[in-house]
């Protein structure tokens, strides 16, 4: 059963009381909130999330509304992970962004049985493409475009890899576009389903895009990586897809991991194996049409 099969009224009761338990990639996440504007947004944007059958949830998160002592007339929201608040309260209109960041944080700090790469991950023709990059490099924008043009979304943020088996697990989540990229993507992908624009966040204006239905439906289908592409969006640049030496790719990839050092030798072996089995590139681009054509050609050739 998916969220979209539950009427809003029942959905609201569920998430307000026992909690909404959804399957997010290899994890079950239990979300509780009574904050109605967030409930309405989640009902729309989480439409294709599968409800967890298992009672066990790896992450228990909550969004609660609060009134700060210094601003008693304003409503703020607080993110709680297992009852603890890992960061400050935020204005109420940022509730969705706070929930999504909070779940990301929970994954980033708690998951150490898997190699966690800071990378967009997409799949085509049965093989995964990694786009490792730090925030601000355009990973989310590129992921949004690719997953609406024939690539299956694994994640715009996390490469979740079993370090022994070398397989990646999909963890498709809402894609938070920022600032100028919101309108650029709206124009390029009129079919994309957007949440409300959330102004004045730490990252400027944010609008979340719902992952395509097929990516959600196939969220339990893992795959191995074949290409590692370090992307960089530069305004007005010509497309450039250059081979990258393995040694440079190794250091870039290891430095893009959340838990490389924690995993120790296991992390080293995992990255080594990944580099040995993948073809590595550096990508510079500015136009979606160009980058789509280049990556389609690359992934046709298997």
């Amino acid at each position: 059963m998916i969220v979209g099969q539950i009427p809003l009224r029942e959905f609201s009761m569920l998430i307000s009381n026992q909690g909404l338990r959804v399957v997010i990639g290899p994890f079950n996440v239990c979300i509780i909130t009574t904050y109605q504007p967030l409930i309405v947004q989640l009902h729309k944007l989480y439409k294709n999330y599968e409800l967890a059958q298992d009672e066990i949830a790896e992450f228990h998160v909550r969004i609660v509304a609060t009134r700060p002592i210094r601003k008693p007339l304003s409503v703020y929201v607080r993110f709680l992970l297992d009852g603890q608040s890992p960061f400050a309260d935020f204005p109420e209109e940022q509730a969705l962004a706070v929930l999504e960041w909070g779940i990301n944080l929970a994954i980033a700090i708690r998951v150490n049985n898997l190699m966690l790469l800071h990378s967009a991950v997409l799949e085509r023709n049965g093989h995964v493409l990694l786009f490792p990059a730090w925030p601000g490099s355009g990973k989310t924008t590129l992921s949004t475009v690719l997953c609406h043009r024939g690539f299956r979304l694994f994640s715009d943020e996390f490469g979740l890899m079993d370090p022994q088996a070398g397989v990646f697990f999909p963890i498709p989540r809402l894609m938070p576009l920022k600032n100028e990229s919101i309108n650029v993507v709206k124009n390029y992908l009129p079919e994309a389903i957007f949440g409300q624009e959330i102004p004045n966040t730490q990252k400027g204006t944010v609008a979340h895009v719902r992952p395509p239905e097929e990516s959600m439906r196939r969220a339990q289908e893992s795959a191995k990586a074949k290409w590692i592409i370090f992307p960089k969006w530069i305004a007005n640049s010509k497309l450039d897809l250059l081979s990258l030496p393995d040694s440079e790719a190794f250091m870039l990839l290891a430095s893009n991991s959340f838990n490389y050092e924690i995993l120790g030798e296991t992390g080293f072996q995992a990255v080594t194996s990944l580099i040995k089995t993948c073809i590595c590139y550096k990508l510079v681009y500015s136009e979606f049409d160009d980058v789509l054509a280049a990556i389609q050609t690359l992934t046709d050739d298997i």
Partner: protein
Amino acid sequence: MFQPEAGKTHLLNRMSIKIITYLSQAPASTDEICHTLAVKFQLTSDAAFLRNIDNTLHHFDALGLIKKVK
């Protein structure tokens, strides 16, 4: 190269790899190492080369990748 005792990863060039692998077989003096490297990489083993290798060996020693023996 992964250093299990320190949990650190080191990016080594070809000459550094040669030094580590050479020393992993048996202890050697700086002169012996320089001679081996000069032959392998077709370089002149002059005073500057010796100094560079000596610096590299000290650096490796500080990192715990090699250990000085008497």
